[in-house]
């Protein structure tokens, strides 16, 4: 018996690979220092910025149908946090949002792992200034993919 599939993990890894390849130049405004998922360490300097942290959240069945006995079509909610430290980042975070949206749109199937990706929302979150300006923008997307029923 083969190991269970881990489609959600493969999709998140594909996202990280794509975002790590973003480089400032003709196509994008910024290069991103860290591209992580569910990062737990602590940034301590401006050199850690800008960074992206991906958080896969709720997964739900797109539609219950007869085929659901063997196949699950999943809608996976993914939050992408852009974290900035230092002057001008409060303003420049809008360019970073544009970078990510452009990159996501280059392939909405994530290398064929999903069948579609939809934009849900973007939201400016904390802006703090304890010694430095820090800010965060969260982009939420839905990734629709198919997997065998009762696998991951």
């Amino acid at each position, binding site marked *: 018996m083969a190991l269970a599939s881990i489609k959600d993990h493969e999709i998140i890894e594909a996202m990280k690979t794509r975002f790590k390849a973003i480089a400032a130049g003709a196509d994008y405004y910024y290069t991103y220092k860290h591209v992580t998922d569910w990062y737990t360490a*602590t940034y301590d300097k401006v050199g850690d910025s800008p960074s992206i942290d991906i958080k896969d959240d709720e997964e739900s069945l797109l539609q219950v149908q007869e085929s659901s006995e063997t196949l699950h079509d999943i809608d996976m909610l993914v939050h992408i946090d852009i*974290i900035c430290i230092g002057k001008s980042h409060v303003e420049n975070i809008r360019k970073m949002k544009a970078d990510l949206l452009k990159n996501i749109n280059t392939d909405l199937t994530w290398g064929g792992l999903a069948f579609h990706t939809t934009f849900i929302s973007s939201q400016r979150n*904390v802006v703090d*200034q304890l010694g430095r300006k*820090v800010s965060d923008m969260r982009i939420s997307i839905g990734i629709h993919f198919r997997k065998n029923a009762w696998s991951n």
Partner: protein
Amino acid sequence: MSITERDIFLNTTDFAETVVFTPFGGSAKTLNGLFWSPGEVVNVGGVDIILQNYMIELPSEEVAGSDTNSTVVKNSITYYTGEQLPDGHGFTKINLSLDQY
């Protein structure tokens, strides 16, 4: 001239450091004050970031009425002023940032 308790804190051979304070839109003046830089963790985007929360205590009469984004220069580093918290005993604690407000 009598020495006040505050003068003891502003003595640069003991506690204080010399800084250049420039009120926003005003003229620079050299002052002695007490500088603090404790680390503080903020959580932004689900990620912890440790930052130094710079503060300085300066004689209240020297900084009274100055606006946000006045500057404090210490050791050639420029800090921008934020909130001012007078303690009612002659010192005003000012939050500082390396970035303009």
